[in-house]
């Protein structure tokens, strides 16, 4: 996977700025796979310059009130609308209580100017192997709310990302929000290594809910493969709690069991080593 565009202009398209979700869905119904939804535009505009995507209709959702919310929805969790920028979300502080892993992941996405425009939903939908929100969202058990002219559906983020720049989204569908379960007593953290790169070479999201025998660890690795990978082996290592001993075990297991790939940023061998480091790093922070 390599990015870089010979072009500096965008392909031709008609720009739409619907004022309601209904209007947006009507546009999607009419234009189907000739259309793409735009949030902050950071991902879509870059993809369009590369001609990875050449929609003839762009539907900007930033004016749709229903998509701007950040609120707890009973039965769904914390709902972050598709038009909410990463900066807004961070500044609201709402992630600090139960979702530190996501707060940490988003704090270091790109730079402050990009974060001012990029949306959480957009970052997720980019599904570039090295973006940071997917592993955090998957570890939190988040789901994507998808709306279509014919109805709506919910799909876990882990199923939503199928491959690099490949998401489970039909031509007349759009993502309206990400729902993140709110579980009291959740502890979570995120770590990444970006040495000599702007993108992560390896990242890890750990979420721990419950206590004692009800302890549920979820460990998801990002950037080391074409999509985020969950590691049941590392989860097993910390199921009985995060202790110096289990941290050491988890770190060793991460280096052995997680499938990594070679790509333009790093080799699989190096990534497997980095996983040992960042696994220990992230778990230690959760120990106290």
């Amino acid at each position, binding site marked *: 996977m*390599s*990015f*870089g*565009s*010979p*072009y*500096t*202009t965008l*392909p031709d398209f008609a720009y739409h700025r619907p004022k309601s979700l209904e209007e947006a869905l009507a546009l999607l119904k009419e234009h189907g796979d000739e259309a793409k939804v735009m949030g902050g535009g950071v991902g879509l505009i870059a993809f369009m310059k590369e*001609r990875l995507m050449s929609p003839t209709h762009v539907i900007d959702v930033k004016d749709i009130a229903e998509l701007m919310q950040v609120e707890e929805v009973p039965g769904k969790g914390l709902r972050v609308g598709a038009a909410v920028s990463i900066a807004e979300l961070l500044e609201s502080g709402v992630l600090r209580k139960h979702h530190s892993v996501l707060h*940490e992941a988003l*704090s*270091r996405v790109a730079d402050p100017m990009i974060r001012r425009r990029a949306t959480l939903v957009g970052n997720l939908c980019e599904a570039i192997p090295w973006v940071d929100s997917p592993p955090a969202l998957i570890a939190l058990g988040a789901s994507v709310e998808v709306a279509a002219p014919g109805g709506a559906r919910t799909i876990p983020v882990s199923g939503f990302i199928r491959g690099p720049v490949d998401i489970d989204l039909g031509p007349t569908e759009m993502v309206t929000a990400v729902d993140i379960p709110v579980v009291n007593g959740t502890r979570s953290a995120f770590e990444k*290594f970006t*040495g*000599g*790169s*702007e*993108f992560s*070479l390896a990242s890890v999201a750990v979420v721990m809910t419950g206590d004692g025998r009800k302890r549920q660890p979820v460990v998801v690795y990002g950037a080391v493969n074409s999509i985020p990978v969950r590691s049941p082996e590392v989860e097993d290592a910390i199921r009985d709690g995060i202790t*110096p001993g289990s*941290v*050491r075990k988890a*770190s060793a297991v991460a280096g052995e069991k997680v499938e990594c790939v070679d790509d*333009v*940023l*790093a*080799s699989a*061998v*190096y990534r497997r*080593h*980095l996983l*040992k*480091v960042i696994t*220990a*790093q992230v778990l*230690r*922070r959760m*120990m*106290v």
Partner: protein
Amino acid sequence: MTGDLAVGKPVSPEDTVRKVTGTALYTYDWDLPGTLHAKLVTSIVPHAKIVGITLDRAKEIPGVVVILTGKDMPFRVGMYAGDRDLLAVEKVRWAGHPVAIVVAETLEAAERASELVDVEYENLPAVFDPVQALGPDAPVLHERMEEYKHAPVFYPVPGTNIANKFRLVHGDIEKGFEESDEILEDEFKISHVSHAYMETQGVVAQAFRDGTYEIWTGCQSPFVVRQIISESLKVPYNKVTVRVPFVGGGFGGKAGLGWEALVALASKAAGYRPVKLVLSRKENFASAASREGVVANVKAGFTREGKCVAYKVRFVLDAGAYADYTVNVSRAMGYSAEGVYEIPNVYCESLAVYTNKIPTTAMRGFGYSESNWVLEQVFERAAKKLGMDSAKIRRINLLRPGESHTATGERVREDVGDPRKVLQTLTEAIDWEGKVTPPSEPWKVRARGFALCVKGPSQPPNASSSAIVKFNEDSTMDLIVGTGNFGQGTTTALSQMVADQFGVAVGMVRVDPLRDTGKSAYTWQTVGSRGLFTDGVATLRACEDAKKQILDLASQVLRLPASELEISEGTVKAQGRPWVSLPLKDLVFGYVYSNGNTVGGPVIGRGHYTSSLNSYLDPQTGQGVPTIFHTFGGTAVEVELDLITGAIEVAKAAQVFDVGKVINPLLLKMQLDGGFVMGMSIALFEKIKFDEQGWVTNPNFTSYYIARMKDAPKEFVTRYVETPQFDGPMGARGIGELSMISVASAISNAIYRSIGVRLNNLPMSPEEVWSAVSAQKPELMEKAMEAYGRVETTMKVRP
């Protein structure tokens, strides 16, 4: 000279105000009425015959004016190797090779049409590795090499992929090895590097029906561009005008062939309308030239007293598909092999080799950074082997001014500089003898290292510079020079020198930001750290010429011999009788008597400089005088290496150079700081990556990482030595490239000194370093991981 002198003061470059207010205009900003926009169509295969190019679909795009292919311009151009086509003719030689240029009313139309040009290729076997390209069965990229008009000092080998072969023979290398007590051998690899100047390559060109051409381009060598256009389009030089507005960085990448001739021809074909071509960043990575990759094999012999008595090195340059400037780099890499040392027996072979990858060209350092990477590490390892301090082994081998000869047989002059003083100042600057603070964590290593370097401009013996000092009616001056300004601020330094010559405020002298081959004084090129030196000498000579004219006129008016007059504080004064005086204002446009009679006229001072002292190099042995001065210097660093990730952080850095005379300490600082950052970025991060088809896989700034503010060390010490160069302007030498040359070696030496790990490959990325440590000192890596594993308390959460 009395009064407040400008030379030696930290005068801000006069164009900074334009830059901070956004009013400096670059080629990227340049527009003429009716400008058309151009877009390149480039090859998608690395080595193939062009079977056919179909333009029908592309021509249907509304707004397309003309599309040209290689058939429309089937001639070759070049400065040194003469190997280059403007567009691919008959075959493409790398993935990214331009095969067509689309010209349209809007950029959007040009880009749209460029997607619709259909090219049919017949693939040929390709070769991507330079060592393989030397093999007998390797596909030959340039089958008609013998037809190329190359400069006589280069030695291509037709029938092979060797674009140039340089050899340096000094003493008797085998005898040297026999006399050695310790022998070191190793192989070093350097990755391709992108200049990554912020302003991508761009040209605005207009052909006129009267046979003239006007070009706006961000280039470092407008006079060379003019020459190339004239020779390839067969027009006299004075019918081609090349203009250079502000340039957003050059670093050698804009010194050689650019797109000027191509765009000029496009303008002609487009009905003599101006045409503008600006490369996108990906195109700049994939279709413009970068710095070559290098594989170096070295064998060095030392006596147990620490004297290096034999140094044998072979440089194989991965020059890519075209090597016009790289042949010169290969030569410089060769004759710079021995660096700052006096080594009695040297054998160096340097080959520029064609491969089916992006073409290559000069880059700041010009082969010296590469030869330094090998040499300085060899010395560091020899020091360790002999149980000797790093500084001591340097002292034992340093070239001695007035006594030594270089490996090219050049006598090292008394005024060349003071390498011993440089070394001493450098070790002081980094507190070499002092204790190193312990690392911040037990799995990290904190260490100091340094490396020395030396360089002079690699220019032909007849490379010249000239200058004109022109007065205006109010006695302000215009200094007209050819040397360009891409951020080095050379013209500010020159203005300071002129101001002091006449004893006026530096604001009284101005150098126009635009270069124009029709209006600027000639200079060979703005490269090689030569600007201050060569154009400085020319400038001072122009001042002398102006002064002579002024004094001749003043002598008439004052009725005194010119030899009894002097100029100071903007006034001509009689020596010893300062009340007998005339302001310059009354003389520089002729003197008007009270009755209106006028004598004299506008004063125009002119001067030129061509080095009389350098020579061609012997084709068999490389003996001769390749350069006009030698700036000695060095870099020292204190680094912190995180063993568990391989990440290196430069905590402190020091740079010391013997610049002869500090004309402007602020400009010096900007070069030393900026050059360090660029050198460090290349040392730690930068690598153009290729896939198995020779495609550049990281043509962007996320995966081709260049240093940001967070990477720049905050503790930075810059010091200088002033050993005046007798033939330099006020004793000064050049500095532009020097600040980059020894950075990588210094960092690598710090690591080697402390943990004995050899880092032979550039860049020293975290993965590269981790691999090297794991392979060479597995027990050290284990210990580090263990130490890391023992940490039980909460770590600091990064913000």
